[in-house]
């Protein structure tokens, strides 16, 4: 198999779904229902991306580490902490959970 050709084919099928809606839809006025649907997409996608994936994010048998990291980051985020600090706190929590628990 030609690996370089494969990489470019994978690049093409990754690029097309990213590119088409952006180029086509940007200047079109959409019906309000579609608009509402699209406005909810970021929050829906974030929810689906976070859970349950986060539970296995620190390895297959490492639930405590993942839970400790997520709980710390949820608490920090609830208190409107700067995003970099939330990320740092979450990684630290996962690291501590990984080493000590």
């Amino acid at each position: 198999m030609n690996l370089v050709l494969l990489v470019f084919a994978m690049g093409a099928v990754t690029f097309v779904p990213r590119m088409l809606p952006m180029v086509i839809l940007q200047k079109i006025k959409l019906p309000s229902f579609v608009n509402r649907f699209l406005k909810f997409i970021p929050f829906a996608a974030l929810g689906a991306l976070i859970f349950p994936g986060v539970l296995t994010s620190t390895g297959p048998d490492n639930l405590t580490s993942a839970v400790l990291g997520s709980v710390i980051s949820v608490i920090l985020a609830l208190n409107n902490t700067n995003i970099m600090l939330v990320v740092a706190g979450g990684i630290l929590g996962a690291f501590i959970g990984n080493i000590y628990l």
Partner: protein
Amino acid sequence: MNSVKSHCQETYLMQNTQKRTAFRAGLRTGLPIAIGYIPIAIAFGLLAKAAGIPNYVGMLMSFVIFAGASQFVGVNLLALGAGFSEIVLTTFILNLRHFLMSASIAQRIETTATKKWLALLSFGLTDETFAVAALQNEPHLSRYFVLGLNLMAFSAWNFGTWIGLFLAAGLPESLKLSMGIALYVMFIALLIPSMKKSQPVLVVSLLAMGIHTVLHWANFANLSTGWMIIIATVASALIGAILFEREDCTE
């Protein structure tokens, strides 16, 4: 004549400064993504190496594809001896969710952006750059801001891949594992403030988590994670659009 010229030059300079400010803000806003990407890209580099893929192909993947899930799955499938079309088709299915994200963000990018600009910006669309861009407070995003954001993410992804391919074999396992949570934590940090502010957002995002969890546990028809995320996202956003007819979900 002279004054017109200097006036034009002034506006030109001012616009240039604005562009630069927006670009820098984009780079800065992209920092949490970069922190999350580097360890994952390192892991990708290590995996590609372990699968016996030549270093230049590993680098080329991060440069041309720039999509974590696709690259991991691609390398896995290669190691399993899958065929060309199977790998390309799986990559395509895995990335269909970006179709939704691209449609969602299209309405937010400043309308002065040309199609060439939009195509360039769309190359940098990932789960992470999309989430960060979509949750900015400004209703319209400067194309220079999005470019800066994407460039930060893209550079970190390629830098991490390079480390993984050439340097990373010696990193301690516990550190590598702990970094795996970084992107999830960033998603949490992005989502929670909006969940606090708006009840529709709270309902929609909890619904998405619930639907994905049910699909994950039930695991019927052997759905891949890519499909589960698409189904959960579309279903919960649809329910939100039906339930909250009058509310504006962004506030």
